């Protein structure tokens, strides 16, 4: 194991985060605060409670997941796409480092960044609404699992993308709608039965449901199913990455 190489990639990626602190941390925090103002204060004042929790408090786990999902994908896809774009990928490919180690470096850094971000948003939310976390360990476990899984997904997008447009396409056209329709701002029980069934096809529902359970012990689907679905997505991403490196897809010609 070339642990020094993993460390080099990880620290390099983290250094990029600190260099672009405003974009990486401050902007998601600002946009989350805006969600609180709009959804929590303006709309929340008209919705009394959701399953015994005030609306402002109810949306906190969904908002954190929204940012963690999108930021994990953005960080990881950009992290691997940028060396491809500038050509510096030559150095990674010619270094005595295995594919597995490359993934640990890039995905580890992307996931770390979004976990930090998730915790910052959690703290920011604490300023707006009272929070109580029933299962902090499970909360962290969901946060880490989601961050890692979607960083892997972002890594795949970064390798697949051969232009900035493609890099933006999946997050914009697929992930954002799935997240908004995944119960960030509402319980899927509020939906009519038909739409509820449709919503269950959305993988993000399981993430948000499980994550919300760790906060308030309320969930749209059972926790075991949430963990199972997230893990299944993780395994699919790992399988795709294994295939990418085995074939050299979009990396080696």
């Amino acid at each position: 194991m070339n642990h020094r190489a993993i460390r080099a990639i990880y620290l390099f990626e983290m250094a990029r985060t600190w260099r672009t602190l405003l974009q990486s941390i401050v902007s998601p925090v600002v946009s989350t605060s805006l969600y609180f103002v709009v959804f929590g204060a303006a709309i929340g004042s008209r919705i009394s409670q959701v399953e015994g929790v005030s609306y402002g408090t109810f949306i906190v786990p969904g908002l954190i997941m929204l940012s963690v999902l999108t930021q994990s994908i953005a960080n990881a896809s950009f992290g691997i796409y940028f060396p491809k774009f500038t050509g510096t990928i030559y150095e990674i490919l010619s270094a005595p480092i295995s594919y597995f180690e490359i993934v640990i470096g890039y995905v580890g850094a992307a996931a770390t960044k979004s976990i930090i971000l998730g915790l910052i948003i959690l703290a920011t939310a604490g300023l707006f609404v009272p929070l109580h976390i029933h299962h902090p360990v499970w909360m962290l476990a969901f946060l880490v699992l989601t961050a890692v899984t979607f960083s892997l997904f972002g890594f795949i997008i970064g390798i697949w993308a051969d232009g900035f447009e493609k890099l933006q396409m999946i997050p914009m056209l697929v992930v954002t709608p799935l997240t908004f329709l995944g119960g960030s701002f509402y319980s899927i029980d509020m939906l009519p039965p038909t739409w509820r069934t449709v919503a269950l096809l959305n993988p993000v529902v399981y993430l948000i449901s499980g994550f919300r359970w760790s906060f308030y012990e309320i969930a749209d689907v059972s926790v075991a199913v949430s963990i199972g679905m997230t893990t299944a997505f993780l395994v699919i991403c790992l399988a795709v990455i294994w295939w990418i490196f085995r074939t050299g897809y979009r990396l080696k010609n």
Partner: protein
Amino acid sequence: MSPIISVANLSKTYGSGFKALKNVNLDIKRGEIFALLGPNGAGKTTLISIICGIANPSEGKVLVGGEDIQTSYRKARSLIGLVPQELHTDAFESVWATVSFSRGLFGKPKNPAHIEKVLKDLSLWDKKDNKIITLSGGMKRRVMIAKALSHEPQILFLDEPTAGVDVELRKGMWEVVRALQQSGVTIILTTHYIEEAEEMADRIGVINKGEIVLVEDKATLMQKLGKKRLTLHLQGKVATLPESLAHYELDLCDSGATLVYDYDTKGERTGITSLLSDLRNAGIRFNDLDTTQSSLEDIFVDLVRTS
């Protein structure tokens, strides 16, 4: 002594069906400077990319320091430093950070003293804290060499190291390369500048259309293929040459003021003595003469044309 790089029956066919390399066999000796010459698209960069792990071979085998580049890639790659043709750099990193990153990537423990030495050798020390984006093209090129040397490689690949570099800087680069060779590093360089190969290389390989056309010691190559040219500056202008001189295939230049004779140094007889005697018999006199060895460039152009 076993070669430090051994390429056997290497072929590369791209997805488009284009054959970039055709059954290439090549051995690089330890400690030499090997120049790989070839026109654009000849397969130079593809060959280097495969040896360094950036492209996959279609067929064949490459050993680096006795290690197979595919089954024992860690050992093989850790011996190699690569300076690619294009200036691929991280614009917003400092020189120090990017060079240190490369060392880490190759699994070497931190060694600020070594990085300092590399940067000083490449006259980059006073730029160590500068962002790469602020550097000139020549400096960026040197940053890339510094990155390649950061992990103390035994082999250094320089793919067109002096492309787009001014004459003075090019000479500075040659000095760096020579100093590296003296410290025991094997250097493989590809170049368009024949004078670079002529100046630097111990051996020369010529690649054309994906095939190695020739590999030879530079001196032997020059001697073997080199032609010499005898130029006679005539006392008076000559309009036509007499029939008795026809078999020398002379060229009359400068409106008949100079006479040029190409001869082969390989041949047992150069024909110079009889030419001079025949000239005297024909009444053609000259007041000066000089000879020149044909350059590597002439040899190269000949080879590529005939291959």
